[in-house]
């Protein structure tokens, strides 16, 4: 439901009545085929929201070229006709589909749902009103979102980096961080937006790709690249791309009066006043909750934090203050894409926990007529040629293509459609298939990427196997790119149709493979992540086997005291363990580890073993790897030699027990990044900055006379944790920045511990006398992670953490179907993020476990046993580990050699094996060598 907003939520969890207001689109979605004629004729231009006002759009427009739904809409505020009845109306006149409806009206829907998930997102901070850094005054000061559009090939300059003021090339670019973040004075947002450091680095690196000699400088306070692989990217940006990083606050942005160059004045890291000129200044704008979302929060009656984000408990990070209403993404606190995707899945898990009894009640399975057997039939091809309004027909002589198609071998029927994809045409194609007894179909239209699923459904509805259709892309590959040479485009259209017909004539009916699913889960690891995933899956109604290496549940969280927001971790973990123990669906295997794995998605067989060698075999459809991580043991800062040099975890225990050294100590020094962000451990452990700040606050809270120092490289109190950092500064905690090349030195000096460090503000060495030194130690992956990974064929990264399938969009999936990852096993993270990831892994597993069978695409490799000689070349190239070598048996049962076997469940039909095989011993259905040869021959036969 687009152009729609929630205006009221009545009812209770499990049974809500939601009122949705749908604004008029003024374009009939069923009729609009997005040909674009309306927009071309529309005389009204306004600044485009999608291009962040760097480009223009018309009053009738699509949000962006790849929009879903790809339907035009009229902006009533800028449309001449809607502002003045009787005027303009060009769009209506040129719309062949008759889709324009100026009389469209607002609609109110009342919808009964069991749960509501609020994912309204954020808006980029608008620096106009704050009047900061010359934005809105100097044209060459732009926001990071605007730069994103300038860098995009689909943006206003098609990816050319130019100065907005005069179109001159950009040679020097400056990024100013924390605009609209960490700044209560100018913008009112005290929190850190979490994403800007990383996107600024990315934009600087990409801008340098566009302009190789570009000088890019990032002005920042703390470089917050705390996500997975982020620090490595930061180092590459410094060393390989040559991006400059300057830690300072800028005094102001001004012009020199003559040119449009921008002058920045600042104090550099050597303490000198510097003046530098730039072509373009980019403001790295933060994330904030828009006004209309604040209104949504009011309508939903949910609580917000002081920073205007949805308030959520740390152990239920997608639960709002109102039962049955969940939240995820940037509305639940500023965050990046992977964490947003994690929370999207986590919200699904939380909803399913609530609504599991009603699962499948409102969904239906589409039914189709019985499929016709075409084996042995002569091909009778139907060709449907789409005009796509004027998109194709405006360039290509479609009538000539129609006449030509009729002359091709096996073609029994040809027809042209104004829009082949429209609903009425689908019914018509179905009718023609039956009337003319067609058994193969060619649709000459647009791209199979978007439209093949539609035509496959149409074939199914007509009783034909869905794989008997071939698309010839005469639009994207032809009329759109050859608009200036219509005659040659027409010839090419004929070529494409001829090739498609040649291929489809050899097509066979293919059966999708379906395998049964064992509707049980395996969770490996009994820490907070494993417990959370196991409990959620059990509450969703699935049996769960929970395997824990030790004899204790709770994992690392047993050593933690509080979350960043102050929730008491021991209470929460004890509750979680009780719930897991009390749940009948969870079987716990303590002191067991995984020793062997067989099977594949839906049908894993995992063998677990205890110390005595007792084995158990667990059958499961999906699995969650949550084996956690561990604290590193420091090898520096005299940790071994001085008893009052302790790790953060040791300090927590001593502090809680009111141990005498802590009680008597007056001066504390915390050293950050011990074992993180250097050498082979070039990653941030993510939790230590916040942890040290909390410890410092606790010390001062107990006795305000204590002196507390935190020696840091970059304070990474990201998101709303920034409030803790601000509070610590206010309460007198002293923060001293150090660089990797000037690490602090710790020396025992009688009763004192001397900590020497170079002060970058005072530009001289400091000697701090301390009674106790606390080391913020790194989080390491488990040593056995890689071995477990091998058993499930899932990889670990260079640091030893498990590697997800896609860094952005599949953050809890593995490349091996059916296996998921959560918690510290994936990367260091605080408890609330582990809980979210565990819920997400659970939701992803549930998408499999909620089905009795998994249906797999029919395009698969198959072995020709006569041709395959077992050379095994294909095994090396198969990216999915789907091929194995087996013994070839003769009719009498004797072994006569080797040949390959394809696991259909693991094969994705990519065709690398077929391309590699020297003997044509492996064939990919739907893309057989004969089909591809026929297609190529047809291409060459003019």
């Amino acid at each position, binding site marked *: 439901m687009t152009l729609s907003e929630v205006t009221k939520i009545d009812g209770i969890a499990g049974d809500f009545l939601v009122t949705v207001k749908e604004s008029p689109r003024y374009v009939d979605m069923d009729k609009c085929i997005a040909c674009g004629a309306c927009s071309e004729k529309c005389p009204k231009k306004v600044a485009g929201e*999608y291009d962040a006002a760097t480009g223009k759009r018309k009053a009738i427009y699509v949000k962006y070229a790849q929009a879903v739904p790809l339907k035009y809409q009229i902006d009533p505020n800028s449309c001449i006709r809607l502002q003045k009845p009787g005027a303009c109306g060009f769009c209506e006149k040129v719309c062949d589909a008759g889709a324009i409806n100026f009389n469209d009206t607002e609609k109110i829907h009342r919808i009964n749902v069991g749960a509501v998930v609020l994912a309204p997102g954020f808006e980029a901070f608008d620096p106009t009103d704050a009047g900061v850094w010359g934005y809105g005054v100097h044209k060459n000061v732009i926001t990071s979102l605007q730069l994103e559009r300038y860098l995009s090939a689909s943006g206003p300059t098609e990816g050319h980096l130019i100065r907005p003021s005069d179109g001159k090339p950009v040679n020097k670019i400056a990024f100013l961080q924390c605009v609209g973040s960490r700044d209560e004075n100018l913008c009112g947002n005290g929190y850190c937006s979490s994403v800007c450091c990383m996107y600024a680095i*990315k934009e600087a690196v990409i801008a340098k790709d566009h302009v190789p000699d570009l000088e890019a400088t990032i002005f920042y306070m703390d470089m917050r690249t705390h996500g997975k692989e982020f620090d490595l990217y930061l180092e590459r940006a410094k060393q390989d791309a040559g991006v400059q990083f300057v830690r300072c606050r800028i005094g102001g942005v001004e012009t020199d009066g003559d040119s449009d160059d921008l002058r920045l004045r600042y104090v550099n890291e050597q303490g000198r006043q510097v003046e530098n000129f730039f072509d373009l200044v980019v403001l790295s704008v933060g994330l904030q909750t828009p006004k209309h979302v604040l209104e949504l929060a009011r309508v939903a009656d949910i609580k917000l934090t002081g920073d205007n984000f949805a308030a959520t408990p740390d152990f239920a990070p997608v639960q709002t203050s109102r039962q049955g209403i969940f939240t*995820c993404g940037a509305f639940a606190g500023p965050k990046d894409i992977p964490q947003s995707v994690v929370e999207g899945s986590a919200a699904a898990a939380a909803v399913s926990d609530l609504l599991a009894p*009603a699962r499948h009640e409102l969904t239906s399975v589409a039914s189709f007529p019985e499929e016709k057997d075409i084996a042995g039939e002569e091909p009778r091809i139907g060709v449907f040629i789409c005009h796509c309004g004027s998109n194709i027909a405006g360039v290509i002589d479609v009538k000539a293509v129609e006449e030509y198609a009729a002359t091709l071998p096996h073609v029994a029927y040809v027809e042209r459609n104004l829009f082949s994809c429209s609903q009425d045409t689908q019914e018509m194609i179905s009718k023609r298939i039956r009337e003319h007894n067609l058994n193969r179909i060619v649709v000459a239209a647009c791209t199979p990427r978007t439209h093949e699923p539609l035509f496959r459904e149409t074939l199914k509805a007509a009783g034909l196997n869905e794989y008997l259709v071939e698309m010839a892309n005469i639009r994207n590959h032809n009329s759109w790119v050859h608009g200036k040479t219509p005659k040659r485009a027409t010839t090419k259209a004929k070529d494409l149709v001829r090739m498609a017909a040649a291929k489809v004539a050899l097509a066979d009916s293919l059966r999708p493979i379906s395998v049964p699913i064992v509707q049980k889960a395996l969770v490996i690891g009994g820490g907070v992540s494993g417990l959370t995933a196991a409990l959620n899956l059990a509450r969703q109604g699935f049996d769960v086997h929970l395997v824990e290496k030790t004899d204790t549940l709770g994992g690392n969280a047993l050593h933690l005291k509080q979350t960043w927001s102050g929730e008491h971790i021991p209470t929460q973990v004890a509750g979680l363990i009780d719930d897991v123990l009390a749940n009948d669906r969870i079987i716990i295997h303590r002191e067991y580890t995984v020793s062997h794995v067989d099977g594949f998605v839906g049908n894993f067989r995992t063998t677990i073993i205890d110390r005595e060698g007792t084995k158990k075999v667990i059958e499961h459809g999906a699995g969650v790897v949550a084996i956690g991580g561990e604290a590193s043991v420091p090898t520096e800062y005299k940790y071994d030699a001085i008893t009052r040099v302790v790790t953060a975890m040791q300090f927590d225990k001593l502090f809680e027990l009111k141990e005498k050294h802590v009680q008597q100590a007056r001066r504390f020094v915390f050293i950050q990044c011990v074992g993180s962000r250097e050498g082979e451990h070039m990653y941030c452990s993510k939790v230590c900055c916040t942890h040290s700040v909390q410890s410092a606050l606790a010390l001062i809270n107990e006795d305000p006379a204590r002196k507390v120092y935190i020696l840091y490289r970059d304070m990474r109190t990201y998101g709303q944790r920034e409030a803790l950092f601000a509070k610590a500064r206010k309460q007198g905690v002293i923060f001293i920045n150090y660089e990797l090349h000037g690490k602090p030195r710790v020396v025992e000096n009688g009763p004192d511990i001397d900590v020497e460090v170079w002060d970058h503000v005072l530009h001289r060495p400091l000697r701090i006398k301390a009674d106790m030194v606390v080391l913020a130690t790194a989080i390491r992956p488990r040593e056995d992670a890689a071995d477990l990974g091998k058993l499930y064929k899932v990889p670990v990264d260079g640091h030893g953490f498990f590697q997800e399938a896609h860094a952005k969009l599949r953050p809890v999936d593995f490349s091996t179907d059916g296996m998921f990852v959560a918690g510290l096993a994936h990367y260091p993270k605080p408890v609330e993020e582990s809980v979210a990831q565990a819920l997400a892994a659970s939701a992803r597993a549930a998408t499999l476990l*909620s089905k009795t069978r998994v249906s797999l695409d029919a395009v698969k490799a198959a072995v020709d046993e006569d041709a395959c000689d077992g050379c095994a070349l294909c095994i090396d190239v198969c990216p999915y580990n789907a091929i194995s070598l087996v013994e070839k048996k003769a009719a009498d049962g004797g072994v006569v050699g080797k040949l390959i076997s394809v696991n259909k469940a693991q094969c994705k039909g990519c065709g690398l094996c077929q391309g590699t095989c020297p003997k044509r011993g492996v064939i990919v259905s739907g893309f057989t060598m004969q089909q591809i040869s026929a297609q190529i021959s047809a291409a060459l036969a003019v």
Partner: protein
Amino acid sequence: MLDTKKVGSVMIVGGGVTGMQAALDLADSGYYVYLVEKTGAIGGAMAQLDKTFPTNDCSM
């Protein structure tokens, strides 16, 4: 919780990456999903981005 009525459908408010992920996972595990989007098309902020870390994949 008391044995109250449970409706097997969910409303997701917001069609960005987060909302879409929630919608897909719920639809794939047996719930009827209403995806409510304020603007004319789903995609959210990510659709505005040029490329993404670390692969420089096109955000589309």
